[in-house]
């Protein structure tokens, strides 16, 4: 099948459209590139005369990209017709009038009629190609001009405009200052390379006054010009060293290693000098938290496995972590120890969880042994460390045989207190029943039965008394045995109290029974109260006064119930509390000596006064030589960093403001520094109270 004329014309038109579209795109790209390059050249040229801050340069770079994109977009939008076949046909018809709109008609007719002879198409198929090449000529020329301009400009300035970055002040070429300034300390850049263990990126700082760096960081000062004559005096504490600059291309460099103490670096170049503070960035030790075991405990048997778990975190990175288990065995003055290490693992992350299993069988523990368990983590600080963090310690003790409370498994009779409660309840019921029958009884019978209940009540009272005696370790014979000894009650109570007092062995003072301040009395007070109530009830029953006896009997029952419900206090043995007879030791009888006169200690914070004095001195000298004020403040800042961080911060702000010529801000910072030293304001009365003068 042969291709018809319409197909050939359409194909030629499509080819022309392709060329025209190519030309439009290429022209837009080149114009955008040329515009961007010209803008960069303009910024670089401006930077030659006026140093543009890095923030402004970054903003201008963004503006540059925006303009270039705008140019590209504008051109593409304006010439969008190149993508449409009718517009391309019209574009050709405009330039080849001989076609007499034949191409447009051909397209619009859809090939229904043959308006264009193949021979008539001969002049226009190459026209689009030539047009596409022609339209890119001018933008290419503009691009070449911009490139030439960039090449003519100093490479440092172009780099500052094209790729702004911290620390590029030293590569700036200042045309306006050529031959005027020979200060090789301005501009000054500083490169900080953290130690390898920190795994941080290097950073650069322009025109530094004070920088923070991890101890062990590589600090490199970079400036323009020859290295000869440029030096740095590095002062850290009492030590001071002199470091000479070395040449690196057209720059000088001074390299230091950041120490763990605040350091002042005084750079000098002939008559020029400046001070830079190096503040150590603290590498905190790891924080370790022991999650399991949760609490201290006593184990009945040294068998089984105990799960250990701990969480460790570090501000930079952990290096290693493990569990330490100290096993102490023995008692009294003889102890032996051994240390176990469990779950040790190497870590290369800021946080980690360590787990381990402590086998009590494998540890070969014995009754009485004590396990002290804690987790330990170290960080990767190889310069000033490693920092070691430890968790709290958990103590697990293996119980000794016989130390645990015994458990009675043989059914036993109810305890005495319960028996007493039952008995008292029965006596109450007997009394209530007797009271109900009283109307039908004569006086003698009533008294006989009431005496019988009174006898049981007295027996129960003696039982309760013996119970208290038994608790105090005494003999039950302390209670009277005959109901006729009515005056024995007071003696017995006093005896009970005295026994309770002796049993506590706490004080030599009179026991305050009502306060119940000793554990023994506190436990036995309800029983003693029941004892009293039973005595009163017994007295009433002896006289046949049933109404008078019942309240006391019920009070006795309630007291016994309280005693049953009371918390048991198990007293532990303790060392005797030796009271030294000071007067006897001094052979001074009852005379008391006078204590020696103590010399008051000096105020602790004399360093603060020294700093205030130094600051005043520096400010006084500033009147004579204001140029050195910033450096002097920075030197003082280094000394104050450790003890007076707020004061040091204010001094740093003041020095920074002075270097930037911001007098008001510097004054504010110095006022803040003085207030930081002075401490909180203390308000005192300025006028003394009225003394009565004039009366």
């Amino acid at each position, binding site marked *: 099948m042969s291709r018809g004329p319409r197909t050939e014309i359409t194909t030629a038109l499509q080819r022309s459209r392709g060329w025209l579209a190519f030309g439009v795109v290429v022209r837009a790209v080149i114009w955008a590139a040329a515009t961007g390059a010209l803008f960069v050249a303009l910024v670089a040229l401006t930077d030659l005369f006026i140093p543009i801050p890095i923030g402004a340069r970054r903003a201008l770079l963004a503006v540059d990209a925006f303009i270039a994109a705008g140019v590209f977009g504008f051109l593409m939008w304006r010439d969008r017709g190149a993508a449409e076949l009718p517009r391309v046909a019209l574009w050709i018809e405009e330039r080849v009038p001989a076609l007499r709109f034949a191409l447009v008609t051909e397209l619009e007719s859809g090939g229904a009629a043959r308006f264009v002879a193949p021979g008539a198409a001969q002049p226009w198929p190459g026209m689009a190609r030539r047009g596409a090449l022609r339209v890119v000529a001018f933008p290419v020329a503009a691009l070449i001009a911009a490139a030439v301009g960039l090449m003519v400009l100093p490479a440092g300035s172009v780099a500052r405009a094209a790729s702004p970055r911290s620390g590029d002040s030293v590569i700036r070429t200042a045309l306006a200052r050529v031959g005027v300034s020979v200060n090789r300390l301005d501009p000054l850049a500083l490169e900080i390379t953290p130690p390898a263990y920190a795994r941080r990126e290097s950073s650069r700082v322009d025109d530094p006054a004070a920088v923070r760096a991890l101890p062990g960081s590589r600090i490199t000062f970079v400036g323009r010009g020859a290295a000869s004559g440029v030096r740095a005096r590095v002062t850290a504490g009492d030590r001071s060293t002199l470091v000479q600059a070395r040449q690196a291309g057209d720059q000088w460099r001074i390299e230091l290693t950041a120490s763990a103490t605040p350091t002042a670096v005084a750079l000098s170049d002939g008559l020029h000098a400046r001070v830079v503070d190096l503040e150590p960035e603290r590498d905190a030790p790891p924080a370790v938290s022991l999650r399991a075991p949760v609490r201290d405990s006593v184990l009945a048997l040294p068998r089984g496995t105990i799960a250990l778990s701990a969480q460790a975190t570090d501000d930079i990175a952990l290096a290693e972590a493990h569990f330490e288990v*100290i096993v*102490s065995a023995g008692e009294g003055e003889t*102890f032996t120890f051994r240390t176990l290490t469990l779950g040790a693992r190497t870590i290369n992350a800021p946080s980690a969880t360590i787990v381990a299993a402590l086998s009590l069988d494998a540890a070969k523990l014995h009754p009485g042994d004590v396990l002290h368990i804690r987790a330990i983590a170290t960080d990767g600080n190889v310069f000033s460390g490693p920092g070691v963090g430890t968790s*709290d*310690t958990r*103590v697990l003790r293996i119980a000794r045989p016989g130390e645990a409370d015994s458990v009675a498994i043989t059914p036993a009779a109810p305890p005495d207190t319960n028996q007493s409660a039952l008995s008292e309840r029965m006596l109450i019921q007997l009394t209530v029943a007797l009271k109900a029958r009283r109307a039908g009884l004569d006086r003698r019978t009533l008294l006989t039965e009431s005496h019988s209940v009174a006898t049981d009540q007295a027996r129960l009272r003696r039982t309760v008394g013996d119970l208290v005696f038994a608790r105090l370790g005494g003999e039950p014979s302390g209670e009277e045995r005959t109901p006729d000894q009515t005056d024995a009650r007071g003696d017995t109570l006093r005896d009970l109290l005295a026994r309770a007092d002796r049993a506590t062995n706490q004080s030599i003072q009179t026991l305050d029974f009502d306060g119940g301040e000793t554990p023994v009395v506190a436990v036995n007070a309800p029983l003693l109260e029941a004892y009293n109530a039973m005595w009163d009830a017994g007295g009433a029953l002896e006289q046949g006064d049933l109404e008078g006896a019942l309240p006391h009997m019920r009070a006795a029952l309630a007291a016994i119930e309280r005693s049953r419900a009371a918390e048991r206090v198990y007293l532990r043995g303790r*060392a005797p509390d*030796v009271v030294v007879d000071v007067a006897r030791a001094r052979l001074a009888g009852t005379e008391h000596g006078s204590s*020696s006169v*103590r010399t008051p200690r000096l105020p602790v914070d004399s360093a603060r006064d020294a700093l205030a004095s130094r600051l005043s001195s520096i400010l006084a000298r500033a009147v004579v030589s204001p140029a050195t004020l910033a450096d002097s403040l920075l030197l003082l800042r280094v000394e104050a960093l450790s003890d007076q961080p707020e004061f040091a911060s204010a001094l740093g702000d003041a020095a920074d403001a002075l270097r930037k010529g911001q007098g008001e801000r510097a004054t504010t910072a110095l006022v803040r520094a003085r207030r930081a030293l002075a401490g909180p304001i203390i308000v005192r009365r300025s006028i003394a109270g009225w003394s009565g003068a004039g009366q």
Partner: protein
Amino acid sequence: MTRAPAAMSEFVFATAQYGSGDWDSAPLLPANIIDSVARYTSIAVAPTGATAPLATPLALHFPLLYLTGHLPVRFSDNERRNLSEFLRRGGLLFVDDHNHDVDGVFHKSATEELTRVAGPLHDLPNDHPLYRCFFKFDGPPTTSQELNGWGDNLVHKHLQAVMAGDRISVLYSSKDYSSEWDYHPESKRFQSVDNTRFGVNIVVYALTA
């Protein structure tokens, strides 16, 4: 019963109580030192000692804290904070290794904790004012535990200390004074030379330095 002294009109010998270990392993030592202070000085002294739990601010009421034990010393955060505050306020902490063993866990754990709280320990020169502030000594007096080969079988020539300026902040002993002085003061009459005299120096130094 532990109680804070109402006023510091008299010296109270305080034993530091910490959560781990056997802090009360020398129960008679306080009475013995109190007896010696009363016997040889005119310092107003309380007739009984006190227990100062390091986990509470009560420890800050005393000028001198005595700390001993056999078992590992692991301070809690509260104990560490209060002890640090106690030292910052000028208190003197007297630590004695009841094991008399520089390879023992008390020594290792206590020195580790003290280093963490107060700084590293250094040998105290034997001509330090501590040895001359009341009785005169040529250095720390030896103990029978040292001479009889207990513990590490060493006679320690120096005490150790953490200094706060020119003043002792922490006094550390590996000589086991806790065993040497842990007897009832009534038993002193059987000794030809009172071996607790150095304890008087420690008290006097704590009150006057």
